[in-house]
């Protein structure tokens, strides 16, 4: 407890210092930490990022493939995670020393300062034939004064370095998922593919790092803490959160209601495109967590725009998943039918079962 307080005090001092700076030169970007040979602190020089190699940021210490976060690099995990062909993920945030993100709304990205980096590593365990862990890529988003940029780093075969790639590529993978052999042609996205989901009104944005997804516990090396409180304690988030945050939950948590689980699942898997100002907001559904309190936004008894198959007469047909377009889309692997559009080539059986259970559990449009 003492430790937490001391952090907060330090954070407050830093904030005051920063405010003072700001008054002098409001337009200036924060100066990067000077890089000298042997300096092991994180460095994100906004004039030269994205770097060619992931190691140049020094986000990780020790053997890089272990993704052990360097000082100031803080791991987090949203309550429900996006399904991308069973890829495992580690997410980190780094905020320039002395700066903080601020709460905007439960369902809005934390407003992190210019210079912030979000780091997300995609890897698989039990990759065949050697049955090893294999890191595929580490995606980095960096907030410049002009907005967020994407930088995707593809890991070398020997897992010692990852190199910047903007064009995307394909990786054939065979692995065992909970003992079951699986395979896919994994798509490493190009910069434009990143933007398909990561945007609002055509401008690049992060997706997961919202208060609604982080007001839950995560096990850090020092113990299990509420992620938002941990951010505050580490001085990267201003301590002005409202008392209650309307939150998503882990959709795997069967103690929760089917509706809450499904809404959480849809938010993380679909909401980035199916919400106002996003890629597919011309379709009638709105699947962001804050919007799905209204069953109409979920698509219940909503006729799809397109006459596609007369049996799929509603986006969600209460009581009958075989007549529900959403179920058809989630169960398809055809590129032109499947949803989400990108990020998966395999059916997410757990998500599909959740949707099936939910649809079977309701009988009315307003349920």
């Amino acid at each position, binding site marked *: 407890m003492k430790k937490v307080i001391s952090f907060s005090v330090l954070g407050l001092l830093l904030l005051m210092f920063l405010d003072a700076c700001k008054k002098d030169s409001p337009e200036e970007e924060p100066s990067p930490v000077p890089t000298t040979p042997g300096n092991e602190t994180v460095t994100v020089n906004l004039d030269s990022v994205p770097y060619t190699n992931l190691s140049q940021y020094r986000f990780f210490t020790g053997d890089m493939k272990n993704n052990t976060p360097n000082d100031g690099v803080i791991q987090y995990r949203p309550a429900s995670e996006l399904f991308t062909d069973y890829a495992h993920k580690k997410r980190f945030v780094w905020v320039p020393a002395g700066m903080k993100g601020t709460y905007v709304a439960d369902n809005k990205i934390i407003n992190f300062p210019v210079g912030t980096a979000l780091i997300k590593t995609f890897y698989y365990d039990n990759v065949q034939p050697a049955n090893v862990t294999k890191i595929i890529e580490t995606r980095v988003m960096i907030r410049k004064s002009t907005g967020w940029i994407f930088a995707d780093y593809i890991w070398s075969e020997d897992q010692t370095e990852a190199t910047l790639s903007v*064009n995307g590529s394909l990786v054939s993978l065979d692995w065992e998922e909970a003992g079951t052999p699986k395979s896919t042609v994994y798509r490493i996205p190009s910069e434009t593919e990143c933007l398909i989901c990561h945007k609002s009104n055509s401008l690049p944005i992060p997706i997961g790092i919202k208060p609604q997804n982080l007001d839950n516990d995560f096990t850090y090396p020092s113990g299990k803490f509420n992620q938002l409180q941990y951010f505050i304690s580490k001085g990267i988030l201003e301590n002005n959160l409202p008392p209650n945050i309307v939150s998503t939950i882990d959709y795997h948590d069967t103690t929760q209601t089917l509706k809450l689980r499904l809404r959480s699942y849809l938010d993380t898997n679909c909401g980035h*495109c199916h919400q106002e100002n996003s*890629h597919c907001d*011309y379709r009638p559904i709105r699947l962001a967590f804050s919007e799905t309190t209204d069953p109409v936004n979920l698509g219940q008894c909503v006729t799809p725009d397109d*006459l596609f*198959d*007369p*049996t799929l007469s509603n986006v969600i047909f209460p009581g009958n998943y075989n*007549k529900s377009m959403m179920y058809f889309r989630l169960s398809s692997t055809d590129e032109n039918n499947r949803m989400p559009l990108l990020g998966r080539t395999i059916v997410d059986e757990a998500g599909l079962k959740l949707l099936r259970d939910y649809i079977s559990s309701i009988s009315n449009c307003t349920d």
Partner: protein
Amino acid sequence: MKNTLLTLAFIMLFKLISVAQQTCNTALVITAGINTIAPITGTEVPTQMCATGGSGATAANWYKYTPSQNYSVTITTDFVVNAGVDNRVHVYLGSCGFLACLVGDDDGGTNGLCVVSFNAQAGTDYYIVFDDIYTSAGFQYELIENSINPSQLTFTPTTISTIRGNYKIAVADMNGDYLDDIVSVSDTNIQVHQQDISGTFTISNYTTTDAQYSPSWSMAMGDLNEDGYNDLLYGSGSGVTFMLSANGGTAFNQVSGPEYVFSQRSNMVDINNDGHLDAFVCHDVEPNVYYLNDGTGNLTFYQGGLGDHPNGGNYGSIWVDYNNDNLPDLFIAKCRGGSSTANINEMHRNNGNGTFTDVSVLTGLADPVQTWSSAWNDFDNDGWMDVLVGASSSANGMHKLMHNNGDGTFSNITAGSGFDSYSGMSTEYVSYDFNNDGFADVFTPGYILFNNGNGTFTAETYSMLMGAVGDLNNDGFLDIQNGNTIYFNDGNPNNWITLTVKGTTSNNNGIGARVEIYGAWGKQIRDIRAGVGFRYMGTLNAHFGIGLFNSIDSVVVKWPSGNKDVICNPSINSVLHIEENSAPVATAFFTASATMINQADTIDFTDNSIPCPNEWNWTVNPTSGWNFTSGTTAMSENPSILFNDAGTYVVSLTATNGNGSSLIPFSTAITVQSTVGIAELTQEAIKVFPNPAADLLYIKSDQTISEVRILSLLGEELASSLKRTNNSISLTHLPSGVYFLKIITQDNQINITRFVKQ
């Protein structure tokens, strides 16, 4: 007691009914009207599902309907009293054990109830089956008999179970006979149902290497490597694969580029007007891409210059000549959510030299409506391509019918057109004349919006969804493929013509050519296009209906090369094949009312040039001593000439038709006698035949012939002989060409006749 009896009677009745409808063989005979269906307990579950929703039913009730006369029949369960019931209906033709699906419906009514319509023929048995896939409770239904509207177009669904493959999305010719084939693709196979002239299909399977990219978003076809067989383009979400034909269309070689392309609509078209077909692919999230062809199928990837919005939004490209310069222009139907400009439709004018000018705003087509495809055709037959911009979503406005003003601009004529009240939406809109009435219609899943020819369209519902369009039984009426079901167009009395084209200077498929037909109704036009609508590949043939008109004056093909072919008076209700530059130029020919006259007499000349001359140029040598009369001139079709001075004149005609001028003029010698002291001559009858002649030329005359000479067109004497036994002259020694035959009679009269040696 009474109660008991009643109950007993009810039970017996119920039992009778439930037994009667358990199986096909015990199907309950029904007639028109409202009836009640007992709970679904029938033991025979049909194996073939006519309605969507798949298998899974465990019981079904069977009914048999045999109409007394032809009716348009509707079966509906869409009644309030049926609330809570979710039923499904299948309608079969045939006999028990040998049933074939006719139609079916799952949710055509409200809340899971069904409505299905079909045309029923007098005396035919129709088996109507309700199954329990969703609910097994009984319900009310009504069978309605409507008299058939003779003008309504119908389609007969026919299952072709042998069509296999993951992508059953293409109908176009594969073997070079210009009959539409069914092309179905899997990652390692191309299956072709080749249409034979007999109306059957011959199945071929061509193994390919594993396609790096599947046609998950669209497919296009055309002859890229110019071997006479069409090649395939697969547009996937991450790249593009080409399958190029080899060995006379019996093998396919894969070419897949490394480039990331989030494909949407793909097309084949000669983008840089070099006579070689190129390929174009809409990119969903980047500037569009295209592949330029060196003429051997070597393709070079390009990105930029044809719709360069950095975030893409490109869904439905269609190459259409909107400004009638015989160059295909590029229209892109666009879509994008959020505050973006990527959803604004684009038009790019083809400058003919590989460059394009963005005229989206200039044309008035820069519309933010969310559209995935738009249907282009000349809806009012004014000779200019119009467009139905079809909405995929109502978020940024609905459908717009845009009239091409012919001056580079378009006007919104949606109001009152029928599209303003049409609330259906789709990613797919294509335009063809399905009922052959001479006015291009619009097809979108489940509906054909028939063009009434007066600026209005009437939407009619159909059970077919979007699919590849082509003529799969070569009857001049366009059919639609939905997976394994071909919806064969039942046709009507309207007349038609189908034009198949082959480019020579232009690309092999003649893609980008403008095809026109002229007749008593005026004009109709089509573009040859590869890739219309959003996803499917349809016929490369130009298809026209002409209603009940029974002749066509001429067919004109304007090729992208600038060449033009005109065919006169083609046969109707048939297929006409036109190869670039093959239509004949005019052959000049005329007759004269006399060839020997007196001074100051007039000769009337009658043009007999073929085919379809439209310009004439008459010359007379020497150039003086005569003049045109009766208001005619040297440009008249049938001039009259007054010969003032005695002498010999040569009158020549050069005729021109849509394909060009006659290569050699037709000439006739005129002898004008002085009226001073000379007795009036009588016109002798000398006939020379056949003309053109092969080896022998016959001469028939009332007079005795003393001499025959063959002259070149320059008057040079070539040969002279006459077999007097049969009045013929041998031509075997003459090269093919045009000659004069000079015949001198015993009384020294001279007759000069033009003939052709074959």
